[in-house]
């Protein structure tokens, strides 16, 4: 099968009239599929010398379908530096050091991303080394056990944060069957049991570290043709897999839920209100509408923020998070309340705001300001190759293509106040709601 070469050119100013909206992703890029299912996205930029590679594996905590094995997608973020026959862990680190690279990885609900930033002359070294570990990772049980302790260490370093804890409880309370019920770190009991799961880890790798799950993003001082040649050379032999996880569907939530966390040490009370919302879409307005709504109703310019944070000064943090996820997920609102006695008041104010969103269209001028904000926010972040690759990774994880960004922003551009109201009516419902609160051992004030 011949590889398909798509070259998307978006010289916005040349292709569109002055009145047409500019595409938000302003770089020309190439998107190509290898016969084995691996996808390559190359984005030449005019930032000199530096290249960033982001390798996105569409496997996150969402894929952890087997009971007792939560946290394995994230565990691989660690195991991937445990060596191959060709590159021992020492040689791998020494090579990264020799080329002065910055290299790391992160895991989310939906994907794991391995990223490296380095000088352009070292592209072949990085490609050779990365393909080697993706294709032939080999670690023995003792090293596996040691690495699981580093994961427990990561759990420990996170454990002094009540935000982490409330995040765990929200997921566990809101979901019954879907794997979003656990966070990316996994349940503590599973993390503690990881040292005993060597065999399972080999299976997990065999299932998911496959070309059809993987997209390589290369951004920076590069030429697409030269990048493609390297990809063919080093990744062409990687074997396609066949595993398809059976990810449980979450039943419709039919009643509001509440939960509470008693935090053992002093901290400010926290209040979260979450709603079940649909999976990411850019062929309909739903996700875009919820994204705009999160800013309209809860960002620092919103009525509620101005009231609770600036005027009454009862709350010191207020924000909403609209997750862009592969499967139906949560829209979350979070407030940190200065006095525990104000918790009910703040909760009622948030619920009242939701009610108003369901019943009244938002101001069109404010919706325009949100759209403008989001476009400039993206433009301002794209000031170096590493961040551009990082932004792309999150969209590529959803739809395997950079044009996902433009499709999503095109939906934002078309939103009307009626769309916002419809999204609120449809998704921010009482039955789909989960409220989780957290209070410290005693008030910090």
């Amino acid at each position, binding site marked *: 099968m011949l590889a398909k070469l798509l070259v998307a050119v978006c010289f916005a100013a040349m292709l569109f009239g002055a009145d047409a909206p500019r595409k938000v992703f302003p770089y020309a890029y190439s998107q190509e599929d290898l016969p084995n299912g691996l996808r390559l996205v190359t984005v030449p930029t005019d930032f000199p010398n530096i290249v960033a590679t982001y390798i996105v594996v569409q496997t996150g905590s969402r894929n952890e379908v087997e009971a007792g094995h939560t946290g394995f997608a994230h565990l691989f973020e660690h195991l991937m530096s445990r060596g191959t026959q060709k590159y021992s862990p020492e040689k791998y680190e020494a090579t990264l050091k*020799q080329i*002065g690279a910055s*290299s790391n990885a992160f895991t989310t609900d939906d994907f794991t991303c391995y990223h490296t930033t380095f000088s352009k002359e070292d592209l072949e070294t990085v490609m050779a080394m990365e393909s080697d570990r993706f294709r032939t990772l080999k670690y023995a*049980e003792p090293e596996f056990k040691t690495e699981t302790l580093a994961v427990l260490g990561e759990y420990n*370093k996170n454990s002094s944060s009540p935000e982490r804890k409330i995040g765990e409880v929200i997921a566990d309370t809101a979901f019954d069957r879907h794997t979003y019920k656990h966070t990316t770190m996994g349940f503590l009991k599973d993390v503690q049991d990881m040292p005993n799961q060597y065999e399972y880890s080999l299976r997990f790798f065999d299932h998911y570290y496959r070309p059809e799950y993987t997209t390589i993003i290369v951004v920076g001082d590069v030429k697409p043709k030269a990048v493609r040649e390297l990809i063919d050379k080093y990744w062409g032999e990687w074997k396609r897999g066949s595993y398809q996880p059976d990810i449980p569907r979450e039943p419709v939530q039919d009643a509001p839920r509440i939960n509470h966390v008693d935090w053992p040490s002093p901290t400010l009370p926290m209040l979260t209100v979450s709603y079940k919302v649909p999976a990411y879409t850019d062929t309909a307005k739903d996700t875009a509408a919820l994204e705009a709504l999160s800013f309209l109703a809860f960002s620092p310019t919103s009525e509620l923020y101005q009231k609770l*944070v600036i005027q009454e000064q009862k709350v*010191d943090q207020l924000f909403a998070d609209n997750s862009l996820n592969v499967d139906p997920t949560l829209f979350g609102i979070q407030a940190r309340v200065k006095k525990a006695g104000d918790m009910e008041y703040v909760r009622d104010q948030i619920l009242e705001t939701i009610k108003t969103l369901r019943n009244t269209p938002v101001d069109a001028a404010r919706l325009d300001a949100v759209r403008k*904000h989001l476009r400039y926010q993206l433009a301002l972040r794209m*000031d170096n190759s590493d961040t551009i690759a990082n932004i792309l990774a999150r969209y590529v994880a959803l739809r395997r293509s950079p044009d996902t960004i433009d499709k999503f922003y095109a939906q934002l551009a078309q939103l009307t106040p009626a769309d916002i109201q419809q999204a609120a009516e449809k998704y921010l419902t009482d039955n789909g709601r989960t409220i989780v609160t957290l209070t410290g051992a005693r008030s910090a004030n």
Partner: protein
Amino acid sequence: MKPLAVLLLTTVAATAQMRVVALPSKSPLVTLRIVFTAGSAADPPEQPGAAYLTALMLARGGTKDLTYRQLVEAMFPISSSVNAQVDKEMVTFSGATHTDNLEAYYKLLRAMLLDPGWRPEDFQRIKDDAINSLRVNLRANNDEELGKEFLEQNLYQHSPYEHYSAGTVSSLQKLTLEDVQRFYRTHYSQANLILGIAGGYTPAFLERVKKDFRSLPEGGGFRPRENTLEPIRRNRAVIIDKDTRSVAFSLGFPTLAIRSNPDYPALLVAISYLGQHRSGNGRLFDRMREKRGLNYGDYAYIEYFPRGMFLFEPSPNLARHFQTFQIWIRPVEPPTAKFALRLALYELEKLCRDGISEDSFEHTREFLAKYVNILTSTKTAELGYAIDSLYYGIPNYNQFLKTRLAKLTRDDVNSAIKRYLRPDRLVIVAVAKNGEDLKKLLTSDAPSPMAYNSPKPAEILGEDKVVERFGLHLAPEDVTVVPVDQVFE
């Protein structure tokens, strides 16, 4: 080791003129970094937090003409803001905007810094935020940053560096609007100003900015209180006692090896070898995490590096006349805490005794010569480093470091290690549950053997036999236990 009996130097400009760092380019973005060289070391002795609250009043309060709400509404569509960072010697206001919005943005920024509103309601909110940030964000929710900042306080006792740059709870409570206005009038002067700008602005725009900032008083530059640093004569430890799952350590000592010091590049090589930040290539990381699974990571620093758990590269504009050598041991399980501390000190002692090998020297030098490109790869970092270079009186950091690294020898590195690093006069800060128990453990000579969940090579087990008895040299009078609610109170 000579005591650090050096006065905090000053950078009083000969003439009271602002300094400008300009990096024009064809970028569609414009980045500003506006630095006043009067940070928390300029706080009046009874007013820790004055510099901090002053900066927040400018960055998160209204202007003379606009309420904070109006300001936020004006910034929102252009997705821009002005952020404040306060350190010992520098207060930095930074922000970026698209060239489409440069006029609108600059009008707001100019008013924020030159015509602040000083509204009492803004002051109350900002003060509450500052107190909650200390009590909750730092003290309650982030053991690692808490340990690092408390280490700073313990390293610089009785000097203007001593207090946390964001103040203490009791001092913040007492500070008045008049206090911060006085700080502003005294220190926000042309002599203290470094104006940094990068990106797609025009020469005429820059001239306008300079003209506007000439409305600040000329000032005489920042003259800190004269004080000396007290030498650390032997190991001592402070344990912050709080209800927490694991044990976080930070340890170190003050150093004069700042960027303008001729030994800086040599020490940078030594420290990168010992524990390059958030990288798998450091010695501590390899021996502690990779080989033994003690925790999530272990690193070493030659410069103060706040918020390291959130950042891969350090924030610029934390330039200082004294810097901090630091080892950061990320949280460990309580039963292995003493072994982890011993191992870190064992590795430090080994470095001090043996220096680094020719191979390690070459590889680390090579790494740094390329890694510096990554450090300065964003416009805001490039601009920030250029400002710091001006402050330290060194050339462009990227070129400076590459040139100096190229001339460096292994002997330079090993002799710098001998002169600046030491394993036995350190301050150690731990954040742990049952502080008194940890104190007993740290002050006892009893071995702390390791038990592993998997077979280990003989080399590791042999080394463990030495490490488990490694002397911490801590007598009971050298260890203090502080309840968490007294820290920064």
